[in-house]
C-alpha cells in the first residue's frame, strides 16, 4: 500500500514537472513543421508564408526589389533624431541605439508584466511629457520600421526567467490564448497556423507560426501601409468573428511573448512586405 502511494506521489510530481516549458514547446513546434515541410530549412521560417509558398514568393521577391516600407523607415529615422520639447529624445531613453528590437518582448520584473517595444517607446514619450503614440496605425509604425531596419540580422532570444513565476504565468497565458478557440467561427490560432498550415483558405496559404514575429512592422498590400503586430492580431480576431482585444493589452502582449519565444533562434528581418 505504502509503495503504491509513493509511486502515485512520484507520478504526480513528474506530471507536474513534465509540463512543457518554453524550450519544449519550441522543439515540439519545430518537430511538427519539419515533419510537414521536410525540405524547408529552419532559417526560412523567418520569411513567413513565403517559406512554404513558392508562387507567392516570386511575387514577394519582386516587391522587395523596391520595398514599399522604405519611406516609413526614413520617417522613423527623423522621429528618432528629432528632440522632444524638453530637448531630450529617444536616444536618451535607449542609449544603446536603435538596433534593439531583439531586446523585446521581455519580462519586466519590476512591473510584473511583459514589456514590448511599442510599450517601451510610449513609456519614453510619456516620461518626457510627450503624447503617446497609437498602437495599431500611424506614426508608431515609422519609428518601429526604423528600429526594425536597424535591428535586422539580430537573433530572437526571448527568455522566460525562472526566478519569477509570474513570467512563466504570462508565457502560459499567451500559450493558452494561442490554443483557445474563439469567435463565432470557433478557430484558435493553432487551427489555422499549426493544424492546417500550408493548406489554402480560398487562394491564401496558411502561414506557419514559427517566424510570425520576425518581420514587424509589416507593409501589407491589403492595408496599403505599414502596421503593427497587434494590429494584425486584431485583424485575425476580427476574421474569426471574435471581438478584437486591446492592442498592447495584457492578452496580446502575452501572446506576443509566447509567439516570439517560439521563434527563438530566427533572425529579425523587419520591416517586411506581405500581401
Amino acid at each position: 500500500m505504502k509503495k503504491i502511494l509513493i509511486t502515485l506521489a512520484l507520478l504526480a510530481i513528474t506530471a507536474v514537472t513534465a509540463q512543457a516549458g518554453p524550450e519544449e514547446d519550441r522543439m515540439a513546434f519545430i518537430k511538427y513543421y519539419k515533419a510537414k515541410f521536410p525540405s524547408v530549412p529552419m532559417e526560412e521560417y523567418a520569411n513567413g508564408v513565403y517559406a512554404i509558398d513558392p508562387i507567392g514568393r516570386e511575387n514577394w521577391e519582386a516587391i522587395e526589389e523596391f520595398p514599399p516600407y522604405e519611406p516609413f523607415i526614413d520617417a522613423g529615422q527623423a522621429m528618432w533624431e528629432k528632440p522632444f520639447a524638453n530637448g531630450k529624445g529617444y536616444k536618451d531613453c535607449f542609449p544603446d541605439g536603435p538596433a534593439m528590437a531583439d531586446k523585446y518582448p521581455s519580462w519586466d520584473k519590476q512591473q510584473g508584466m511583459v514589456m514590448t517595444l511599442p510599450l517601451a517607446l510610449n513609456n519614453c514619450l510619456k516620461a518626457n511629457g510627450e503624447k503617446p503614440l497609437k498602437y495599431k496605425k500611424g506614426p508608431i509604425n515609422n519609428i518601429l520600421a526604423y528600429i526594425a531596419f536597424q535591428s535586422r540580422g539580430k537573433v530572437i532570444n526571448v527568455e522566460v526567467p525562472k526566478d519569477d513565476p509570474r513570467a512563466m504565468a504570462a508565457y502560459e497565458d499567451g500559450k493558452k490564448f494561442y490554443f483557445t478557440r474563439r469567435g463565432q467561427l470557433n478557430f484558435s490560432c493553432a487551427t489555422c497556423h499549426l493544424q492546417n498550415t500550408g493548406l489554402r483558405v480560398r487562394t491564401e496559404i496558411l502561414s506557419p507560426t514559427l517566424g510570425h514575429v520576425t518581420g514587424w512592422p509589416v507593409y501589407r498590400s491589403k492595408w496599403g501601409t505599414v502596421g503593427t503586430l497587434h494590429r494584425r492580431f486584431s485583424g485575425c480576431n476580427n476574421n474569426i468573428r471574435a471581438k478584437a482585444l486591446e492592442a498592447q493589452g495584457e492578452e496580446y502582449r502575452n501572446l506576443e511573448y509566447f509567439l516570439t519565444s517560439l521563434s527563438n533562434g530566427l533572425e529579425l528581418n523587419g520591416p517586411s512586405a506581405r500581401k
Partner: protein
Amino acid sequence: MKIKTVLAMLVLAFGLLAGSAAVLAGGMKADAAMAADAIAKAEAARKQAASVNGEWRDTGKFIKQAQEAAKAGEHDKAVKLAKKAEQEGRLGYEQQVSQSELKIPSYLKY
C-alpha cells in the same frame, strides 16, 4: 329621456375611447418594456462573455441596432436583434468557459 340617452351614449363612447386608448397605450408600453428588457439581457450576456474574453465581433453591433430600432418604435425588430445578441453572448461565454483548461491538441507531439 332624450338627454339621458345622449348622456348614456356619450359615457359609453368615452368609456370605449378611454378603454381602447388604454389598451393601445398598454400594448405600446409592453412592447417598449419588452424591448428594453431584451436589450438589458443582451447587454448582460455580452458583458459576461467579455469578462472571459469571449465576446464575439458583432454582438455589440446587434445591441446597438436593437437600441436604435427601439428608439424608432420598431419594438419587434429590437427584441429580435437583442435576442440574437443575447444568444451570442451566451455562446461566446460558454465557448471560453468550456476551454478553461489548456488542452494541447493531439497533432502537436512533444
